[in-house]
């Protein structure tokens, strides 16, 4: 048998290539640029490549092809939209990452050891976080456009591995940070093993690794159903793990809490987009015809996730954990978009992912601002009276919370409405009811935080609010604007999505 030399369409792949290039440059910078210039160089390289990638995505946003890389990726509307969202979210997250305060000077050094102290004093701050971010982003860009199982798996690892490391980079509470890295890594690897095993069985069923092949195989149901079903189940484990659905969520509260907040923001927002993007593609294209088999399964998971996330969030005392559980609940809401399995569901999911992602970054950006001598203060009880101390910060956070709660005039409400109506349209009434009820529960703890910030008197314990750096300010402002504008005039974006978002098989 003879091999055909692969033909690559570089224009369509350019965003990914740009980011990978940027990442490599970043590595070199890390090696050769003087420590004084390093941070700024890294930042500009990273931002530069991200912006460039975004421009590229825009330039190709009307293109669509299955043969961009020998049918192993599919460039189409949804893919590009998701890529764009990921890049935008990454950009505003990078603004946060730029705050070196958050990262350990020397990840390799022992916590509290001399070399760490020395590195701090000499300002010998390593900045490997930037290339790591870029690697992760490029993985995320591949994930939602991957259209065969190999690429999907590679992309999954490509986005995960850097994240594992980034979780361990916190300057403060390093033990916790490293622990979160370990947990994230072990569980991630564990779940990707499931993923791969599932992939194997699907391959066994379809004797093809491409989504189109799988789709056709299901269409003319040749082969052994049991393989397919086991495959779907195990593959889902991997994906559901990444989106943080119950009961595959356990990592997220710990990692969200342990990781440096900028990384948490990036992870919570961008990873969700990428993972759901992949999920949408595989379930909408490859498994579309086996709907009967996986809809009940996903509905079950969705309901459990919504309810569990909302309920447990009530009991949280730490703001980052609270946000983690809220993101779990949102994963549940987003699943109802996958279950919907219709155009409306796809559009809604994309809109929801973007809106939620931006709001999340904004929310965590606020978290980075509340500090005391020992660094960030994430204990909710110490957020009391924040509204008095710094009304603007508190109000912005309150606004993000209202967006999470899905109160009208915020992007969250439009998202919730569209995704629930899509799910209802596809007959997933149970999911919608569960969704509505759990949003009621969810509202409860968002409001509790607002009460803490505005209606309780501050306790003087040195908790203060950092004057945000101009970049952080930028992040917050952008997130606020997007959240508000999408809440009041979502029409342009919705139309844009509706016109673009159709999966190419």
């Amino acid at each position: 048998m003879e091999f055909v030399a692969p033909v690559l369409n570089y224009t369509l792949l350019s965003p990914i290539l740009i980011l990978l290039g940027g990442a490599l440059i970043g590595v070199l910078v890390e090696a050769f640029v003087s420590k004084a210039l390093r941070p700024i160089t890294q930042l500009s390289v990273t931002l530069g490549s991200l912006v460039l990638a975004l421009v590229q995505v825009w330039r190709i946003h009307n293109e669509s092809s299955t043969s961009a890389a020998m049918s192993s990726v599919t460039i189409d509307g949804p893919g590009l939209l998701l890529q764009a969202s990921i890049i935008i979210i990454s950009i505003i997250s990078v603004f946060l990452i730029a705050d070196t305060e958050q990262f350990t000077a020397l990840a390799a050094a022992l916590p509290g050891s001399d070399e760490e102290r020395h590195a701090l004093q000499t300002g010998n701050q390593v900045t490997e976080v930037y290339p790591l971010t870029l690697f992760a982003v490029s993985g995320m860009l591949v994930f939602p456009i991957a259209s065969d199982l190999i690429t999907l798996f590679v992309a999954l690892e490509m986005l995960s591995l850097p994240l594992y490391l980034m979780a361990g980079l916190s300057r403060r509470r390093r033990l916790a940070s490293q622990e979160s890295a370990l947990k994230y890594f072990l569980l991630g690897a564990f779940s990707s093993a499931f993923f791969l095993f599932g992939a194997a069985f699907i391959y066994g069923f379809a004797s093809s690794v491409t989504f189109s092949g799988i789709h056709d195989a299901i269409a003319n149901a040749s082969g052994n159903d049991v393989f397919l079903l086991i495959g779907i189940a195990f593959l889902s484990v991997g994906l559901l793990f990444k989106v943080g659905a119950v009961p595959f969520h356990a990592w997220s509260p710990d990692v969200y809490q342990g990781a440096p907040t900028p990384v948490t923001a990036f992870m919570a927002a961008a990873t969700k987009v990428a993972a759901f993007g992949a999920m949408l593609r595989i379930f909408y294209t490859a498994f579309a015809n086996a709907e009967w088999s996986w809809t009940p399964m996903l509905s079950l998971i969705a309901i459990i996730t919504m309810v569990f996330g909302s309920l447990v969030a009530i009991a949280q005392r730490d703001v980052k954990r609270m946000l983690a559980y809220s993101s779990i609940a949102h994963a549940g809401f987003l699943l109802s978009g996958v279950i919907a399995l219709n155009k409306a569901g796809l559009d809604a999911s994309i809109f929801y992912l973007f809106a939620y992602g931006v709001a999340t970054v904004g929310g965590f950006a606020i978290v980075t601002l509340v500090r005391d001598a020992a660094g960030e203060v994430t204990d909710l009880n110490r957020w009391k009276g924040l509204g008095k101390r710094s009304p603007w910060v508190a109000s912005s956070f309150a606004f993000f919370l209202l967006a999470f709660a899905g109160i009208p005039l915020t992007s969250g409400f439009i998202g919730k409405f569209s995704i629930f109506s899509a799910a209802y349209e596809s007959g997933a009434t149970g999911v919608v009811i569960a969704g509505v009820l759990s949003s009621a529960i969810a509202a409860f703890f968002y409001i509790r935080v607002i009460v803490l910030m505005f209606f309780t008197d501050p306790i003087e314990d040195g908790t203060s609010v950092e004057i945000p750096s101009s970049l952080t300010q930028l992040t917050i402002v952008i997130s606020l604007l997007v959240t508000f504008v999408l809440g009041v005039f979502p029409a342009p974006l919705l139309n844009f999505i509706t016109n673009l978002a159709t999966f190419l098989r």
Partner: protein
Amino acid sequence: MTTSSSLVYLIALPLVGATILLLAGRRADKWGHILGTLMSASSFAVGVYQLTQMLGRSNEARPVTQKLFEWISVGSFKVDAGLMLDQLSICFVLLITGVGTLIHIYSISYMSHDHDRRRFFAYLNLFIAAMLLLVLGNSYLNLYVGWEGVGLASYLLIGFWNQKPAYATASKKAFVMNRIGDMGLSFAIMIAFATLGTVSFDGIKAASEHASTAALTAIGIMLLVAATGKSAQFPLQAWLGDAMAGPTPVSALIHAATMVTAGVYLITRSNFIFDAAPTAQLLVVIVGAITLIFGALIGTAKDDIKKALAASTMSQIGYMILGAGLGPVGYAFAIMHLLTHGFFKAGMFLGAGSVMHGMNDEVNMRKYGALRKFMPITFITFGLGYLAILGVPPFAGFYSKDKIIETAFNAAGNKGLILGIVTLLGAGITAFYMSRVMILTFTGKSRWDDDAHPHESPLLMWLPMAILAIGSVASGFLLSNGNALVNWLAPLFAEHEEEAERLNPNLVSGLALAVVALGVAIAFIKYSRQEVAAVAPEDVSVFTKIARKDLMQDAFNEAVFMRTGQALTATLVKTDEAVIDGAVQGVGSMAMGSGSVLRGIQTGFVRSYAALILVGAALLIGAIWMVTK
């Protein structure tokens, strides 16, 4: 039907007076009382003018109406703000404004020491206006407005000295018990609209022709309930005694002459309903009969002169209600007794007021005595009223009361016999307790407190008393001379043939006089022959004790309604907090609780997380398995 544009002034004048006096505040203290009196007097003048006009017209053309504007109009429910003055209402107009004006004059002096006199006159004007609206309204709903209006005025006046908690309570009690009656009235209106489709007097009169007895009976009974509330009839009479908390002129005007007789007006006005609803009519009679004895009995035991008079009012109105309950024959006599009673009872109240005035507001008759010499005018005017209420010819009461007793006897069957005897009995008891009042107050030895310096009241006070006294002497004769009133009112009531006389009228009068004489005699022996204790003796018959307690009516209400009501309220308040709100809170804390329980899953051990993932995988497999199998 004639229309007139001047009816509204009857009401407008006093209403304007009230408004000015209330809004002007203390600025009006100087001239407030003058204005008030003038307003009432001018309203009286309009009334007289209307009367002269009316006399000039033929029977049919006598009623005059005036439509002010469309008040409420929704769907078929249309009510105009319209007034109607006919032979019946004119009597009331004159009584209200006439006696009203006299009492205004009286009050100028009586209240001269009260620095809130202006407010008092404002209330009086308000009352006059409301009462006139009550009798002039051309539909039950307009009447209802006046009906509650007088209730409000009475509330304000009873509680005029509401800095005394007891008085404030009295006023509240009056208002609430009246509200119960009002509820009856609104029921009546609702039933009327639902069944007859209208609430105007004319409309209902017309519709009642072809309406079912059931409906009319229902309406009738509800009207009766209303009447019992406003006219202090059994079982809603308990408030009247306490209402004496108000300044005496108020008791004279509202709780003797006018407002309390509104019930009689209502029933007479609704004659077309009651004539067609025998059951309701029978109930009316029964209520009247019970009350007239009830009141009389209470009267025998009261030492407070005003409460004694109040009891007597209750009983006299019982007579009127009974009369009205006797149907077409009775209506006119009921009204006649109402008018004469208006004179003599108002007169006596003012007399009582003048006595209190002289005895620095002492009301306990046991502390009076021998006031004849010190207050001759008061004695005479009061005495004339006394003779009138006893029904001694030729005084007013003789004509009106005897007629009722007569008609009662003439009623068909045992009904007639029973009613006759009851009314006679009532007359006897009345004679007894009124003589008691007379004797205790004016005759015998003085039993005053040391600081009492009895003296005759000034002109402004005795003049109205004198005028009313003349009324109590003459009114009866004038009204019944040639059946003047009967013929005057005849066009309003259904035709009726003279029933066979069970007893000859003179015999009845004879009997009545005899009974009265008996009553007087007993009183004379009991209170004039033997010494009267300055403090009420406690070693008295059980009956007296009960009578002093208003025949336990308050005790009953308190035990049955108030206590249960309070208990119910208390329980409901607790239920609301514990059960209903508790449930809500419960849901909240349940969510919280389950939250913190589920939290336990997050042990922090990575291996347990991995186990969780295994479980999840199993779950997925299971879920898929379910649908495939």
